[in-house]
């Protein structure tokens, strides 16, 4: 079975500072990796995904993530955050030996302060 652990439930940071949201996964098979963002009272929006190829993936809103197979990690980074980045962020893995379902981490609440 697959599982996802987001190592921080809350991350407070000042505006224009860099941020890293950590995600580790476990799986016995190859996985596809995703980061989603959820703004208050909204559904989930895809930030970026890793399917294959280059391990550094760039997404929307200036976010990027690096797939590290040896450490089974997929950390999300942004060099300079804005107030508007305040949201909850979810890391997820997907395989195709279980019907293609997406397994989510518990979420990280990013709070950007002025």
């Amino acid at each position: 079975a697959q599982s996802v652990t987001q190592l921080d439930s809350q991350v407070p940071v000042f505006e224009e500072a860099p941020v890293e949201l950590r995600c580790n996964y476990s799986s016995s098979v190859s996985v596809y990796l995703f980061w989603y963002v959820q703004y208050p009272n909204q559904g989930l929006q895809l930030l970026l995904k890793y399917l294959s190829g280059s391990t550094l993936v760039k997404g929307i809103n200036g976010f990027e993530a690096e797939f590290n197979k040896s450490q089974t990690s997929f950390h999300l980074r942004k060099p300079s955050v804005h107030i508007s980045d305040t949201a909850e962020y979810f890391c997820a893995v997907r395989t195709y030996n279980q019907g293609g379902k997406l397994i989510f981490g518990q979420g990280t609440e990013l709070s950007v302060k002025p």
Partner: protein
Amino acid sequence: DVKVTQSSRYLVKRTGEKVFLECVQDMDHENMFWYRQDPGLGLRLIYFSYDVKMKEKGDIPEGYSVSREKKERFSLILESASTNQTSMYLCASSPLAAGTRRNTIYFGEGSWLTVV
């Protein structure tokens, strides 16, 4: 753009009522999913479907059932609502496209259900 539409954003139901949550997608996707979201627990999969009339249990199917009579519509049913089913419910869909750039799951806006 892909659109996943959940018919009700906010519902209040009484304990013991039968509740239907409807979801429609407009992109001819094969896969559809129902998740439940609770603080500190992330999103947990209730049921999913990879074809019409096909369904598979997710991680927390107890107390729920689903129906997929048409490809574009996936309904979540609470046979007898209970207070511990108060939650945010998210519907999602995706194409069957494992290793391609189309490999993405698209989410609806969510349905907030309160059971009193």
